[in-house]
């Protein structure tokens, strides 16, 4: 069975297929096969969360998931959040509250933040936000504006 194998999944609402090796990671499939480079690789040791995507509705680190394990799965990446030119409320909140500096961790932060809202609802206190962001590391801003952005984005999602 060595060599490459066909894999099919739904990414951002579209059915996609590709040929991957057993060892191909989901993040490699997204970035290198589908050219969806919004999903970043920060640490590559499954700690920083830059590569966070939604897999069947759950936030996961796509650098620690095999592409072949996602056969028939539903994947949403940062590219799948906006509605055309209109940013998703969580993206808009990060822009509005300047929840980023260099921006490298931002796609993962936003995907994790949306997962947080899906699990904990629209009203998030600071403690909940900080606890849920344990798996996302930012090396620039010190999290203050990220927390503000997540809280504002969560509230905005309620009204969207």
């Amino acid at each position, binding site marked *: 069975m060595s060599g490459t194998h066909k894999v099919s999944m739904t990414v951002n609402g579209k059915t996609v297929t590709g040929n991957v090796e*057993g060892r191909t990671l989901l993040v490699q499939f997204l970035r290198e096969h589908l050219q969806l480079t919004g999903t970043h690789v920060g640490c590559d040791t*499954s700690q920083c969360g830059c590569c*966070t995507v939604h897999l069947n509705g759950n936030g996961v*680190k796509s650098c620690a998931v095999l592409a072949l*394990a996602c056969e028939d799965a539903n994947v949403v990446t940062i590219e799948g959040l906006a509605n055309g030119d209109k940013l998703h409320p969580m993206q808009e909140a990060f822009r509005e509250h300047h929840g980023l500096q260099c921006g490298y961790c931002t796609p993962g932060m936003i995907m994790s933040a949306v997962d947080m809202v899906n699990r904990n609802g629209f009203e998030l206190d600071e403690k909940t936000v900080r606890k849920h962001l*344990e*798996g996302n590391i930012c090396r620039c801003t010190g999290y203050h504006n990220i927390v503000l952005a997540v809280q504002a984005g969560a509230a905005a999602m309620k009204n969207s």
Partner: protein
Amino acid sequence: MYDFDYYKPASVAEAARLLAAGDSKLLAGGMSLIPSLKMRLNRYSALVDLGAVLDIKGIRRDGNFLVIGAMTPHAVVAASAEVRKILPAIASLAEGIGDPLVRNRGTMGGSMANADPAADYPSAILGLGATVVTHLRQIAGDDFFKGVFETALQAGEIIKEVHFPIPQKAAYTKYRQPASRFALVGVFVSKSADGVRVAVTGAAPSVFRFTAAEAALAKRFDPAALDGITIKPDDLNSDIHASAEYRAHCVVEITRRAVLAAQ
């Protein structure tokens, strides 16, 4: 990462058959296995993914036991109304593993089979006297963990579920290594009709029962019962995060806090 063949069987029987061929390894959530493969710490001819074996995923009550399927993700255990009601210490343990993204993917069975010396679930297996059910046999929790990343599982043996007896009181308290979220010292305490169990993870090469504390707490289940109880640092871990002496101090102190939390 070295390349490998990949299989995704739909049943335990098929997984066992695939595992028997070559140098194959089971893949559960992959939260430890995939990073270790990326660092080329291990090399396998094939990975056998249990992700499609649905009958070993889920939570149920069976008489006086909480039964958790091996492929149940930590986030599902943490959020389960059933677990929160009948064995909240397990829900709180699951909620403290790794981070939310890891909990969405990582599984109880994967954590057990990996047997990281600082993993959380092993303390619950020993701390409750649980029974591990594999596709071949039942293994007493006390006999399951054998050392650093070493268990009683035979080659090709697959964990199906764990039966946790429901105690009168229980709590898990973890003092975290702040960067990794692993336990510097984690203590699972339970009190049931059969007595008191105190299981310690993170402090030694393998999870162990703190028998001196168990004896003291059996007489009086109160933090004060631990006054004067100590543990020798000789067999405890010493690393850049904590010396063996510091861990020895933490074992008693975290046990105290776990007993308080279980009141």
